[in-house]
């Protein structure tokens, strides 16, 4: 146990017995658990206040329609409680030196201004904080205080003070009976010796406002898929009530627009994002599941439907035949708003019939492609990692070394390497864990 204010050191960790995982999404969590279960130590570095990544934001998962939180939450606590895993959330890697078997990693522990040992996650401080800002976890649709957790399962269950918006009024400090608030805490840099590193930094969404013709940011009833996930999520900003934002009504007709910020040479994103076809079919089905009395029409506009995985094609057929989701092959040309009712008119050619359609929907959901996180370039420069032309991390050989980066002792998994769904991200997490533990077992010799 550390006392507040004490400088934390990591000298007790031996590089020959310790691995670092960077990024605490579902891929990084899997890697951390699989290394830790082999009795090595793991330091898991996550830049946001909680582990869980994007999966924690999702409502259901394709193709089984399992509840995302129901699968993920037990894993979150498993990671948090594992005796061999040291969780460094709200932290970032700022420098890496050394070589396989003996790296030194500099980690910046951003001041969360809450003593992690003392905070019990009771939330008594929250009502006292006068500052309210949009919650990033809800894609900015809901609100949080300056002292906050993004979502109820925040792991570790410790609050964070966001220094950018905090006005240092001290109200939270007075409210906290456990004296966990440390308004004067400063960022701290620590050096950690590790023998192997797994990069699992995931992805971010393409900024769909870069397609002015699709109306995102201009028309209130055009939203993107992750916003939709938050709206239909029971823990989300609307309490799981499917609605549109112009008037709070349940949309009777919804259009999903595929391949936005993906497979577009003109925008510099030629690759297919792999997951958007499937997550949109899932979300189309969920509209019927959640509001079957209201939702009459759900139409998905696609360029090609890529239902490549186990059970995916069957899922698509079920969406079509059992739920009545309409599939129209045609990349949407443009949308505009009907000024009378703020419905969205979608202009598209049905390329199978040659018909030019102008379909009116009460809500339009854009499916953004996925991009490497903006910070990935800086991180990979620190480690000397190569990036592919699409900006994701290069691997030694796509077929036979799919999780080995070009630097010995550093491995990659999940969407940090390329767009992947959850099963593939988890499989890659396990693979990277195995490669990393081999490096540890051999003392860095490949």
């Amino acid at each position: 146990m550390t006392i507040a204010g004490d400088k934390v050191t990591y000298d007790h960790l031996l590089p020959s017995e310790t691995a670092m995982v960077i990024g605490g999404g579902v891929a990084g969590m899997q890697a951390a658990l699989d290394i830790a279960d082999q009795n090595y130590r793991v330091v898991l570095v996550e830049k946001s206040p909680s582990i869980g990544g994007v999966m924690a934001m999702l409502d259901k998962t394709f193709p089984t329609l399992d509840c995302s939180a129901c699968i993920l939450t037990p894993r979150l606590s498993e990671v948090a409680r594992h005796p061999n895993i040291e969780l460094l959330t709200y932290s970032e890697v700022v420098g890496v030196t050394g070589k396989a078997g003996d790296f030194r990693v500099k980690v910046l522990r951003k001041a969360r201004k809450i003593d992690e040992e003392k905070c019990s996650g009771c939330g008594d401080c929250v009502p006292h904080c006068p500052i309210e800002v949009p919650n990033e976890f809800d894609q900015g649709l809901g609100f949080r205080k300056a002292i906050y957790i993004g979502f109820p399962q925040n792991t570790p269950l410790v609050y964070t003070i966001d220094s950018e918006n905090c006005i240092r009024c001290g109200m939270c400090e007075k409210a906290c009976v456990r004296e966990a608030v440390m308004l004067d805490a400063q960022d701290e840099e620590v050096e950690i010796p590790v023998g192997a590193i797994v990069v699992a930094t995931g992805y971010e969404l393409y900024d769909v406002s870069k397609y002015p013709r699709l109306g995102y940011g201009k028309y209130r009833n055009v939203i993107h898929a992750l916003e939709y996930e938050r709206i239909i999520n029971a823990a989300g900003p609307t309490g799981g009530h499917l609605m549109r934002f112009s008037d709070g009504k349940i949309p009777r007709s919804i259009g999903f627009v595929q391949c936005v910020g993906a497979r577009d040479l003109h925008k510099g994103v030629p690759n297919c994002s792999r997951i958007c076809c499937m997550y949109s079919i899932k979300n189309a089905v969920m509209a019927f599941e959640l509001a079957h009395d209201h939702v009459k029409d759900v139409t998905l506009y696609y360029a090609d439907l890529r239902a490549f995985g186990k059970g995916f094609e069957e899922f698509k057929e079920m969406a079509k035949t059992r739920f009545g989701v309409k599939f129209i092959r045609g990349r949407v040309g443009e949308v505009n708003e009907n000024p009378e009712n703020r419905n969205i008119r979608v202009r598209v050619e049905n390329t199978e019939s040659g018909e030019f359609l102008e379909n009116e929907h009460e809500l339009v959901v854009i499916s953004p492609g996925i991009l490497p996180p903006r910070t990935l370039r800086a991180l990979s420069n620190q480690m000397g990692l190569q990036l592919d032309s699409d900006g994701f991390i290069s691997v030694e050989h796509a077929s036979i070394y799919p999780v080995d980066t070009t630097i010995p002792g550093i491995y990659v998994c999940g969407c940090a390497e390329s767009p992947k769904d959850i099963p593939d991200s988890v499989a890659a997490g396990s693979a990277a864990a195995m490669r990393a533990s081999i490096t540890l077992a051999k003392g860095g010799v490949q």
Partner: protein
Amino acid sequence: MGQTDEVRTQRDDIPIRDEDVERTFKYEVAHQVGGEGLLRCLKCGACSGGCPVGAVTDYRPRKVLGNVLLGLKDLVLSSDDIWMCAACFTCEERCVQEVNFTDIVTILRNMAVKQGHAARGYLEMARTVVAYGRVVPKTFAVDKMRANLELPPLQDPAMEELTKIIQASGFDKILALYKGGDKTQ
């Protein structure tokens, strides 16, 4: 059903016969300046979905490209479709594969003209250029409008240079193929 490739069927059920397919047509187009993007076309329809002409007619740029890629040379070059494009460049701006359809339609028009399929309106325009040096002849009404807008009067076109260019480019020879609206030879 037997496995024969005698009759292939397009989506809208127009039978395509082998003798109508000119396999190399797409390369003929792609190898001309501006046609380089043709082979990248996915036939996704983003061009048709934003085309202002398509919004009010049954013209679909995607369909023209599809027919070119299929090799239906005669069908494409003799069709009215290639003359429908208003050259607004919307599709070119939006195409996800950088196909540059507006440039391709120009290539197709040039090929069509040589085969005697020039659209009547374009032919008239070409003849006006040869005769008066302008697409729209200078008239009294135009002069008056310009004067009202305090614009300087139009200059006379440099007919001598223009005629040289027309001859050097073979423009006159192409026009000579036509009598009225039809090809003579």
